[in-house]
């Protein structure tokens, strides 16, 4: 197992370097950081432009620039944004925390409920529950977040508020805290996450319930399950000890990859709910052509996806011994 892990980790490193180099090249080509700097600092002197280029590793060939940029990145010299001259890290950190909190909460809620529904659907195939769950899953998959978000906002924030004649919205429409809140407050934070988490979770529940149902049905019909039953093992034990573990293999893989993408943000949901996460951060930075803001986040996103792919590989191997033997 250790050799398997070492091999996978070793492969992940060059992949990370190659992908981030390609990302660096693409972002630099698309945004032209020097021109972005000049557009905003219209009266910048040549010395200031030179300083900016040195600071952000924009001298020499593209590979040289990448190495320079990577050096700044790993030594945490992330510089300031072009727009507003703001330090990159504090804003990026805040955005990442928001996205991770939103994404992980929604994933936890969505995957837990989705797996539960999928298991019940598979165990009661073609029952009323299965039919209802299947129909609901298709609705959930088909409904884009910008529709479900607005519907939830109107219903929970406006209609219920009006029916109950409340002074403040029944559930908050937007933001991570109520206006004016400056201190950490767990309850308020959770309250503001209910609607955005629900929007994201709807799709996760729908998708994972389908994955789990299909995977478990597939396993239930396999030869070794019949063998287990033929040996007289109870159906409960067959399901719990044999079926679920094998049915989880593809689901775990998908979940790991999905987790890796969370750091990239949930752009639509974050925009609608004024939830300042990395999706919102990235859109704004791209709009400004703000290279110092874009690249660190891109590196983190790429790293996250690669790391979670690695975790998926390892989990896969752990769940299915045939993988590591191969």
């Amino acid at each position, binding site marked *: 197992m250790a050799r398997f892990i070492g091999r996978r980790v070793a492969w992940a490193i*060059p992949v990370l370097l190659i992908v981030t180099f390609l990302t660096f090249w693409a972002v630099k080509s698309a945004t032209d950081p020097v021109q972005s700097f000049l557009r905003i600092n*219209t009266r910048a002197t040549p010395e200031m432009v030179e300083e900016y280029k040195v600071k952000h590793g924009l001298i020499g060939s593209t590979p040289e620039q990448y190495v320079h*940029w*990577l050096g700044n990145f*790993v030594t945490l010299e992330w510089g300031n944004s072009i727009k507003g001259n*703001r330090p990159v890290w504090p804003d990026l950190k805040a955005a990442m925390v928001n996205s991770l909190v939103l994404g992980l909460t929604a994933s936890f809620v969505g995957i837990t409920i989705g797996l539960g529904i999928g298991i019940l659907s598979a165990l009661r195939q073609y029952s009323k529950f299965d039919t209802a769950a299947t129909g609901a899953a298709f609705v959930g998959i088909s409904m884009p977040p910008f529709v479900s978000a607005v519907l939830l906002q109107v219903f929970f924030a406006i209609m219920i508020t009006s029916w109950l004649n409340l002074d403040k919205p029944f559930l908050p429409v*937007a933001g991570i*805290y109520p206006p*004016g809140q400056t201190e950490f407050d767990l309850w308020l934070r959770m309250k503001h996450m209910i609607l955005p988490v629900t929007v994201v979770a709807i799709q996760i529940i729908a998708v994972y319930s389908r994955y789990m149902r299909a995977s478990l049905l597939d396993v239930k019909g396999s030869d070794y399950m019949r063998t287990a039953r033929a040996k007289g093992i109870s159906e409960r034990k067959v399901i719990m000890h044999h079926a679920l573990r094998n049915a989880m293999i593809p689901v775990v893989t998908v979940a790991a990859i999905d987790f890796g993408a969370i750091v990239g943000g949930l752009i639509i949901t974050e925009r609608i709910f004024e939830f300042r996460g990395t999706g919102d951060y990235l859109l704004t930075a791209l709009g400004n052509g703000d290279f110092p803001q874009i690249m660190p986040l891109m590196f983190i996103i790429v790293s996250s996806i690669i790391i979670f792919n690695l975790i998926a590989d390892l989990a896969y191997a752990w769940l299915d011994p045939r993988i590591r033997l191969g």
Partner: protein
Amino acid sequence: MKTMSNRPRWLLLLFVFALVVAACAGDTESTTTTGAPDETTTTADSGATTTTEAAVDSAMTLTVDLNPDAVWSDGTPITAADVACTWNANLNTPGAISTTGWDQILSVEPGTSDKQVVVEFATVYAPYKGLIIQILPSHLIADCNDVSTDFLDAIPVSARPWQLTSWSLDQAILEPNPAYWGDDAPVASRIVMVPRTDDGGIAALGAGEVDFIFPQAFAGITDALAADNIQFAPGYGTNYEGLYFMQGEVRNGPFADDVFREAFSKSVDRELILANIYDPIFPGAPLLQCGLWVPTVGPWCENTQFVDSYDPEGAVALLEGEGWTLNGDGFWEKDGEVPEIKWMVNTPNPRREGTQALMIPEFAAAGFNVVADNGDAAAVFQQRLPAGDYDLTMYINTAQPDPSVTSIMSCSQVPSAENQNQGQNNTFWCNEDASALMAESDLTIDETARADLIHQIGQALVDDHVMVPLFQFPNIAAWRTDRIEGDAPSADAANYRAFNHSSNLWTPLSDSGEIIIGAEQWPECINPVTECANSSWMVWTTSFAVLPAIWDTTSDGTFELTNLVAGEPTVTVNE
């Protein structure tokens, strides 16, 4: 198998080596550069600048006596040094948004005391009343010649009824300024401003999450705002919307061709836009018939100049006369090429996107291949517009109480290497005769003579097909009647300073005593000198609310002295 097991070690070493090299490379940066001070100035403590010989050539002198009681919220007196610092900051900061007007100042010095400001101008500068605004606190600024690294997250002091106690990308909080010397102290305990975009803002108002919004009007907004506890007030303010044509050769787009641009301009059916876009919002309101000014502000708008702008037959004749032909797709073509006209608006903006949906098929029917090419507000207004990265655009501009358009329409303000791309003439229009008229109008203090010059500039806009005015735009202020009491909010519907003009007069009805404002756009930074100030919402939510000015503008577009000043300033035109 052996080969396979060796590869990871090799790759791991490669990665470690790359990181080490990269880390070492990251240490090579060493240079630091500061903004170059203006050569004609000398810098005193905190950057306040004086020039001794400049007054000899002064063409105009402005003398202002500051209110002896006027202090910053930390108790520091507001003095001539603050005005001098503001001048230097706007003139010399590398990313300063505009140097227009500031570059006409020769010196800013204290007069009989540091509470008297004497400003010497190199030329007679008629728009002087609109120049000295957003005065900076010199005592908190290390180098007034470069404030680009100041005001990153705060404007730490105030000289208005409110002080900005907190600002972030999520919200801004204003609280009463304890050192405010005026008699219009705030009634509310605090004002909280949060970003809520167009649709979200109306939803937030309906849900009671915010108490006041200042949304852009769109068809259906009256229905969207219909509720027993919501009141809204439209007002003919100072904003106007128009279509602008990018004619700069730097882009070399289709409108760089004068004939093509004229033909397109003649094909804009403004009555159609009025009937479908504006009339549903404000029935019966007329089209605006002058460019860059509005009829309710001063005598500057000759409100008949664009009456005959729509002339589709004339457009066809013009193009055919220049050898353009309609191709098989019905588009005008010349030399085998069909120009593609990229129409840029900021999104989300239902009204402008609705205009695109209405007019793109109309333009296609007239033979013009127009495509939507939109972006968010920050990208459109702070990046693409200044860079001339569009062919056709549509936005609201504010007719200033002073009619000067030199800063946005003169040849010298066309972005170029000569002006280090600092110019704000985003249409890249350059008419030397019109620019001369602009310069002359800036030197003409007599209002009648100045109006005549402005009308001539307006006619040049018509003749050169620089833009097409559409509508003197109504502002809308909407608020919860169960949260805010009194008529003060309605006054903000037509106002240069948006909601902060009278926000100190609003009476909150909530137990907390606070008022929550939903902002349609949210600034990414709050430096009042740099490109951050290119955002109306930045100045409305932060700098206008706290930084003092000698004159403020009123809803009807006139200047009124603020309580920063004691007595009427004197202006002397030197022979």
